[in-house]
């Protein structure tokens, strides 16, 4: 490109840029809006539950034009997500960065000793809660959680539980189950929910605590059987999944006499010290995302608990959840010394 051509094409571009920036300044007084690309951090690898949800959100935002700037998804999975959390901590005051969280928000700092706490970030909104279900192979004789736990107790230390990662939600639930019932399991850690599901179907493990979405296709195909859901109440979806069962037909573990509950946060955070109207902007954005049919479809497919929270209510929930995790992990001996 010749110099003159360059200048000629630059002038209108500059004018447009100036106009945009003036408009931007005016807007900033009224209401905060992103002025450049927003980075959406996933503290987990590609293909997992958090990754799927974040990419889903990115797709919805793009398809429905919910944001003027683009939203770019970045995986920072190192050290059970510690890499992503430390990035948020280092980005204090940056309103162009958001992060999707899972239980590792609480468990990773405790298990690895990295200098991060959820209070180093600004809570934006809770998008949903992910359920956990106790699954066994369909060929096994156990029809209820009680039968299964009794069998595990009878053969102490022989039953294998497969789960995702180490000292994270799956292992915490396993230890919780052991403490609540007195049964003992061998825990093997796999890379992702798909591998865990495969271990169960391939009879390499007696049970798993997979999320609904990780097991639904095997359940439908008659390969695995849900025993109980680790929540205070049953899943509300009454539409039949298999020939004779809906999500709502799975009893809670408490009903089945196993006194333990656990749900996983799927929420959004920002770095600390960001303007309050920036937080309000994202809360509004995610409310819009939740109203789209794609999101609702996704929620139903994964049998998510669709509770939405923001502001003080969300903070109070987080505080309680952080205490619960600390308590569970201390009891399990998972705290990094």
């Amino acid at each position, binding site marked *: 490109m010749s110099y003159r051509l360059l200048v000629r094409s630059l002038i209108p571009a500059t004018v447009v840029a100036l106009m945009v920036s003036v408009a931007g300044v005016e807007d900033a007084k009224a209401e905060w809006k992103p002025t450049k690309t927003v980075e959406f951090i996933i503290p987990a*690898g590609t*293909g997992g539950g958090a990754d799927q949800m974040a*990419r889903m959100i990115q*797709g919805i935002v793009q398809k429905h034009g919910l944001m003027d700037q683009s939203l770019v998804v970045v995986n920072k999975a*190192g050290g059970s997500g510690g890499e992503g959390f430390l990035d948020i901590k280092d980005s204090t005051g940056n309103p162009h960065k958001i992060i999707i969280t899972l239980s590792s928000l609480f468990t990773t700092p405790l298990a690895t000793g990295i200098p991060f706490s959820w209070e180093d970030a600004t809570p934006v909104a809770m998008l949903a809660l992910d359920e956990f279900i106790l699954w066994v192979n369909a060929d096994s004789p156990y029809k209820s959680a009680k039968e299964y736990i009794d069998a595990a107790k009878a053969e102490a230390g022989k039953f294998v539980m497969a789960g995702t990662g*180490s000292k994270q939600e799956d292992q915490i639930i396993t230890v919780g189950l052991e403490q609540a019932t007195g049964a003992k399991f061998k825990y093997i850690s796999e890379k992702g929910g798909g591998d865990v599901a495969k271990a169960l179907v391939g009879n390499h493990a007696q049970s798993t605590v997979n999320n609904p979405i990780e097991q639904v296709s095997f359940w*439908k195909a008659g390969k695995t059987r849900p025993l109980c859901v680790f929540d205070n109440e049953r899943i509300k979806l009454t539409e039949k999944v298999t020939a004779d069962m809906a999500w709502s037909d799975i009893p809670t573990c408490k009903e089945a006499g196993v006194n333990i509950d656990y749900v996983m946060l799927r929420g959004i955070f920002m770095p600390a010290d960001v303007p309050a109207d920036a937080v309000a902007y994202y809360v509004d954005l995610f409310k819009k995302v939740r109203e789209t049919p794609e999101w609702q479809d996704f929620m139903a*497919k994964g049998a998510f608990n669709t509770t939405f929270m923001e502001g003080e209510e969300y903070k109070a929930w987080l505080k309680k959840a952080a205490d619960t995790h600390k308590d569970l992990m201390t009891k399990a001996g998972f705290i990094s010394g």
Partner: protein
Amino acid sequence: MEALSSLIDGFGVLGDPMNIMYMFIGITLGVLIGVLPGLGGANGVAILLPLTFSMSPTSAIIMLSCIYWGALFGGAITSVLFNIPGEPWSVATTFDGYPMAQQGRAGEALTGAFTSSFIGALIAVVILTFLAPLVADFALEFGPAELFAVQLLTFCSFVGMGKEPPFKTIAAMMFGFALAAVGQDPTTGQLRMTFGWYELLRGFDFLIAVIGLFGIGEILLTMEEGLAFRGKSAKINPRIVLQTWAQMPKYWITAIRGAIVGCWMGITPGGATPASFMSYGLAKRMSKRGGNFGKGELEGVVAPETAAHAAGTSALLPMLTLGIPGSPTAAVLLGGLLIWGLQPGPLLFIEQPEFVWGLIASMYLGNIAGLIVVLTTVPLFAAILRIPFSIIAPVIIAICAVGAYTVNNALLDMSFMLIFGVIGYVFKKLSYPLAPVVLALVLGDMAESNFRNAMVLSDGSLSIFWSNGLVGSICGLAVFMLLWPAISYALRRLRPTASRSQGEHVAGKERSTAP
């Protein structure tokens, strides 16, 4: 024959001209992604995934899987031309592809690589078409002990494979294991060997190591030798394609062996990288021309490329039938399936036949389209070699740096890349092999966690590794492969009757190396 009629319906789905267009766009993008080191298939597909949300699921998966095929094809290009593997599974392609380019046979090496990729994919997709349910059940047999056995076999078949003495290979491999151990302990979740430095918690990514060891290391070596590419006289002639094709039938056994190894590793899921190494090792050992491997033997390009592409293709099978991704790219595609509202798993074939068979049909056509795209561009890529080194070297370094940054979006990785470059240079000067470092880094984590899970299952008893026929025979084969250099040496010394055939072997070697 039910599969056949379903497949014909699948081709009907592809009749839509838009789908054909998406296919070619996907292939071209994929080749570009494959050429850029670091920006692997998984990243490429992840970046482009949101673009496809407005398409129908069938069109979207056709385009995305074509990006994947394109990346598999493209990975070979930089391996052959610059000794820089664009993708980890093309590391083994550099062993013979780069010497060929240095001898001015870049066009031949590229044509050979692309054609054998195509053959590997074709064999895998035929298996996929007719044996899907059967093969899916086989994949379920593989628990932690079996998976570790497969990884052990990969490591063992590698020892004694290169030109270098087996002990140098083992030393290089141990260095790779040490690097793989940095970061997080897969079983206890604790950080280790990070020395309190949190930047290290993600460990060393093998892509960074590949880019540094091979790419930067090669540039350093070339600089020392006087700023000139040794492969300057690359002939650029479309006729080379035909000439290479005329040679290909000679290597049919190697190609079929590569495809079988590839399918096996893709399904179990070992992945394309170990498949390419294992196939190269087997070919070197079993081929009459084995002695020439590493010096620019076309067969040494055919072996890893058929295996890598067969593995890449068959990795989609466990994803479709079980919802278990056989490779990182398959994992991203799996995310895509869920977003389009398709639930991968045993019922996908029954509930969404149009989608599944459309995808399988697109594997046939996509690979044909891919072959056309890459073959027509062979002269173009080979022409890159005529650019003076002083111009191309900074471009390569810039591409390497961008690639290293892209892997984790971390600036520090670029420094690591440079350090790996120096290590690569030193290794080459001391004639230590680089490939075992990469192999150990790629598989080290997985092998460790499978081994430790197996130990948890067996309460610490090693007997789990011969507890059933499957794991026992894989382990036995691994030990045999490890001891092969020693066994063949002992046989030569102990059996005088063998000396005649040994003599013939040596004579054969001399004949084939003679100009």
